[in-house]
């Protein structure tokens, strides 16, 4: 299947996306940001629709919306007592906006489907280069603050007690998360990008006992998902996103049941 150029691009792009989402996901789960990641993907949908309305590439609309969204939702969820209601309200608003932008831009429903459910097969050379560069930026951002990010994400109270600038670390992480949502959406779609951001890393929590080992498991499981998903998608012509979600869910459930059984016995 690698004789097809679009499959080579698809593999390259999804490899970088899986690595990025696998790494960032470990912190998403550690910081209990799964719900926020889900909301950001809906905000990303609105951003993509906005970009279609303006006639620019959906990726840039997504980046714009998710960056603004992650900072404001992040602030709101840190300071509001009704964190989940606040996030739900914002998420509802943005889905509404997304539908509106798609309607007034006059694009067909196929385009909406692509944004929501992904269209990795449609990634071209320029798209791959953009995704790779953005992935590297996210990974660099994480790497630069990793010591403090580890402490803050896995022991927030201890980090505060040690005088770590947890507010600043939080904002940097939200930027990295917003970018991951935007690039992840290119492959699995904005509706399902939270799969790559939460499931491999949730599975990794059962398997690893150190942060490096959790990151390794998380990236590995994300890679298995996207690679196998692309392969089965190529074989069957069914949606790649379907296979990726199925594989990630199955791996998660196996790890979960093994964990439960081990602790019951």
């Amino acid at each position: 299947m690698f004789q097809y150029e679009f499959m080579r691009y698809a593999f390259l792009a999804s490899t970088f996306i899986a690595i990025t989402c696998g790494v960032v996901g470990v912190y998403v789960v550690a910081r209990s940001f799964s719900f926020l990641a889900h909301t950001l993907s809906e905000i990303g949908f609105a951003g993509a629709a906005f970009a279609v309305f303006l006639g620019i590439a959906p990726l840039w609309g997504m980046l714009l919306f998710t960056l603004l969204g992650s900072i404001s939702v992040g602030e709101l969820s840190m300071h509001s007592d009704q964190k989940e209601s606040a996030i739900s309200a914002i998420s509802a608003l943005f889905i509404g906006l997304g539908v509106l932008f798609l309607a007034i831009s006059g694009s067909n429903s196929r385009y909406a489907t692509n944004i929501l459910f992904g269209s990795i097969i449609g990634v071209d050379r320029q798209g791959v280069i953009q995704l790779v560069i953005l992935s590297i930026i996210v990974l660099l951002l994480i790497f630069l603050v990793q010591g403090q990010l580890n402490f803050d994400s896995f022991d927030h109270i201890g980090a505060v007690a040690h005088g770590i600038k947890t507010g600043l670390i939080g904002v940097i992480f939200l930027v990295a998360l917003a970018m991951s949502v935007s690039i992840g959406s290119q492959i699995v779609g904005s509706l399902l990008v939270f799969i790559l951001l939460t499931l491999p890393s949730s599975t990794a929590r059962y398997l690893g006992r150190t942060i490096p080992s959790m990151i390794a498991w998380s990236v590995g499981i994300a890679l298995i998902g996207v690679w196998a998903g692309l392969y089965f998608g190529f074989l069957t012509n069914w949606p790649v996103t379907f296979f990726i979600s199925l594989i990630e869910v199955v791996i998660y459930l196996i790890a979960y049941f093994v964990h439960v059984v081990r602790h019951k016995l």
Partner: protein
Amino acid sequence: MILDVKDLTMRFDTKTVFQDLNFSLKEGSMTALLGPNGTGKTTLINILMKLLVPTSGSFKFGDQVRLGYVPQFRNIDAEYPLSIKSFIGLNAPLIKTSKIKAQIKHELEETHLLEIQNTRMGEASGGQKQRAYLAQALLDHPNMIILDEATASLDPVAKEDLMKLIQHLNKEHGMTVLFVTHDVPLARKYMDEYLYLNHQTIKQGKMSEFEGDYE
């Protein structure tokens, strides 16, 4: 003196937590900060740790002080994945050189956690968790350590273990200890001096002469 507190006052809106506190701690002393719940013990500690700004007054640590601090609450649930060793290592540089690894091993030994270093924090007992919090703070090489209600949720055996460990740090390593608790019998057994915070003021004295009423 390792700590000097002068006229320290703290108010939240109109509520005065405490007013004009004056006390000092000697180097190598072992002091219990006593008082009923809600009298501002944790508030006082947060001020000393520069996590809160007092309304008025001042405090000064000795020039040579290196503080270690074990806060009252932690977010460690039963599913918390990191091993005891990794949890302690959160307070060490990201790149673990052999020197840093040796330091972590030393603190694991000191807190009797070496044999269970690979146990997940989520699966550790209350006493083991408290010792891990202490080990994490010890990585800062403190000569003064502040523990906030470290024994509050522990069973009697784990309490004794932790107190013996703190006593060891004080006697063998000369560490100054400020131990926040509302457990007077425990403080009587292990602490030399007391600070008693109640009714917005503080009293200081020898633990053996403590006659708090907790009203």
